[in-house]
């Protein structure tokens, strides 16, 4: 019997340890995840600067300094805009009109997101809309 109590105790300690790891992990690395409009409508600086944002690269907003390299653009969800600054090479699939996901620090005074990660969603699907209807 002593054995199963010991086993239960060990499991408990273990579950607590993993729970602790996950809790602190979320607290320290979790990012707010909202739409461009929600972020643009924030009237005061959020408690934590870490943000993740989905949206589309606004047409005509891309400024790319390849030498630095530094990429700046406006991200939009069709209603509002947020400026994004990314210190890195432009990803291959990046272009105006493409859907992107950025992660980084949102500076409320500048109203800009300093991205540490920039992922471009694959474009193939919405281009395919140009193919028209099926034959019935």
């Amino acid at each position, binding site marked *: 019997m002593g054995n199963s109590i010991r*086993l239960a105790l060990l499991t408990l300690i273990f579950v607590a340890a993993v729970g602790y790891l996950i809790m602190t*992990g979320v607290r320290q690395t*979790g990012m*707010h995840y909202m739409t461009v409009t929600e972020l643009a409508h924030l009237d005061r600086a959020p408690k934590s600067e870490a943000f993740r944002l989905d949206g589309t690269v606004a047409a005509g907003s891309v400024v790319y300094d390849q*030498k630095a390299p530094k990429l700046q653009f406006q991200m939009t969800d069709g209603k509002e805009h947020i400026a994004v600054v990314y210190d890195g*090479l432009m990803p291959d699939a990046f272009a105006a009109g493409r859907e992107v996901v950025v992660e980084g620090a949102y500076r409320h005074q500048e109203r800009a997101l300093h991205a540490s990660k920039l992922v471009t969603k*694959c474009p*193939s699907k919405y*281009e395919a809309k140009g193919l028209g209807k099926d034959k019935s």
Partner: protein
Amino acid sequence: MSELGRLALLLGFACSVFAVGSIAWGLRTGLSGPLRSGRRAVWAVCGLALLAVILLERALLARDMSYRYVAEHTSKDLPLHYAFTSLWAGQEGSLLLWLLILSAYGSAFLFAYRKRLDPFYDAVAMVVASVMIFFTGLLSFVCSPFRILATPPADGMGLNPLLQDPGMMIHPPILYTGYVGFIIPFGFAIAVLLLNRSGTRWIEEVRRWTLFCWGFLGVGILLGARWAYIELGWGGYWGWDPVENASLMPWLVGTGFLHSVMIEQRRGMLKTWNIVLIVLTFELSIFGTFLTRSGVLTSVHSFAESNIGPWFLGFILLSATIATALILYRKALLESENRMDAIVSREGSFLFNNVLFVALTFATFLGTTFPVLSEAVTGTKISVSAPFFNRVNVPIALALLLLTGAGPVLSWKRATASVLQRNFILPLFMGTLATLIALPFGATGVYPLVCIFAAAFVTTTIVMEFARGIQARKGLEAGALPAQVTQLVRKNKRRYGGYIVHAGMVILFVGVLGSSVFQKEAHAPLKTGDVLRVGPYTLTMRGVTERQKENAVYTTAILDVKHGNRFIATEHPSKALYTKSQQPMTEVALHTTPAEDLYMILGGVNEDGSASIQAYINPLVSFVWVGGLVMVFGTLIAVSDKMRLRREEKEAP
């Protein structure tokens, strides 16, 4: 021809429904006729799926643009081999490939057990057939690969350049072979519950099937990592991306199962737990396909947003509910035959191993789905990415690595103090020694040091196990050391194959440690004659060229690479611009040595004629691939072992 394709899938659906019904009837009545027809229907689905694949391939190779699928995923300038592999470039084709592999597994299973007249195997086939209903149904009624366009375009949209890579030609089929294969263990588990079967013969059979698809899944994951490393051009191979996690989760639970199944074979314990692990592995495979294909989570790999998400979710819920209900219903069958004697024992270490694997999977699952979960619970969306996984998963993985060394040298039932002393003093000493040696080389931080300690610790235990095995066989056969090792492995392929897999895992960990902790980076715009230094390497720009090749224009920088003062190679990082889609694509230049990779990216050519070059030094990356290959080698050895049955199983056929 497209009508024939639709018809094949529709017939496949009918045959799957028939197979399930017929076998169910046969099982209920005990008649062999319905069982036989059911088995034949499973074979028929395989033939029909193959026919559908051939028809779609024919259209792809002929670039028949009247097919929506062909127009979406190919173009006339696409090289023939990529036209062939564009079968799995999109959702419909991928699902068709799923179905083909699924039905092939069903047929292979029936073929393997064709001489067994036990209805148990028919029950397994019935489970496979019920999954076939789902896939043939999806392909017939929800997303047909044989949709025809009202007005065919002159040319197609072209294949996503990211997929135009040799690795991408084989990565999906291999990954799917792993994913889909878990249907067989799942079928076994359900069949055992349905027919109320006891005994361990099935558990030995399941172990072999699981090992097989687990191996394929592992190779698939590695190929995916290799593809990300070469094609995505960000200097890394693993980003804790949702789709990567999706493939890792069933692998983790499957690994846990491969360990705990040994306790059930040896000691008749953990029966419920093992069934739960099998079911979980299968559900996670389906969940992986769902994540990849549904676009629920944003990912570099999520190629499509589609309408099949709810179907998959429904299927997962339904199959998981049935499995859970069956487990509860057959509780008596799953009663443990033994109790655990001591925590410090082989059983104890396996149990702990399982808890760790499940914790790792749980953390990965939680992190991957966190935006959805946090919104459901608190109303605000929170997302986590790589830093979360590094914080949570790395310590759990390191604990597992340590256990890799400890587990195999603990004895069953109870490990005595003298066993511990005999087996642990040398490994502990070697681990400490390696840590002390690593310190002056700039290894700091708890995790890197623990990793180095664990690597040396585990390696020592593995070497000791081999040495002990050879020692025990001394006198039986003489000969050189390599011959003795081969003899030893041959005598117990399962055990020593397992140790080889462990050794591969150690090598892989060392590779991950080196490339994540000690990476160096440098970037600069370079004009002809300019120099970029990164670590001991000097890159000298020789100029930029441009040329047309197949369906893209390549801009290439020519770089002379020196290590110290010694010239080692001329490298060509490039940027391809695909003519059709006007899509740029980075072609990384890679100089690989056993100790490190020099990874070079051409960012582009600037207005003043200079070219932006980014270079990384990734230490020990080759260890990741070599470790993976060693694991595959070990798996092959283990899977080739003969059936090992308990005595009572052999006597009762």
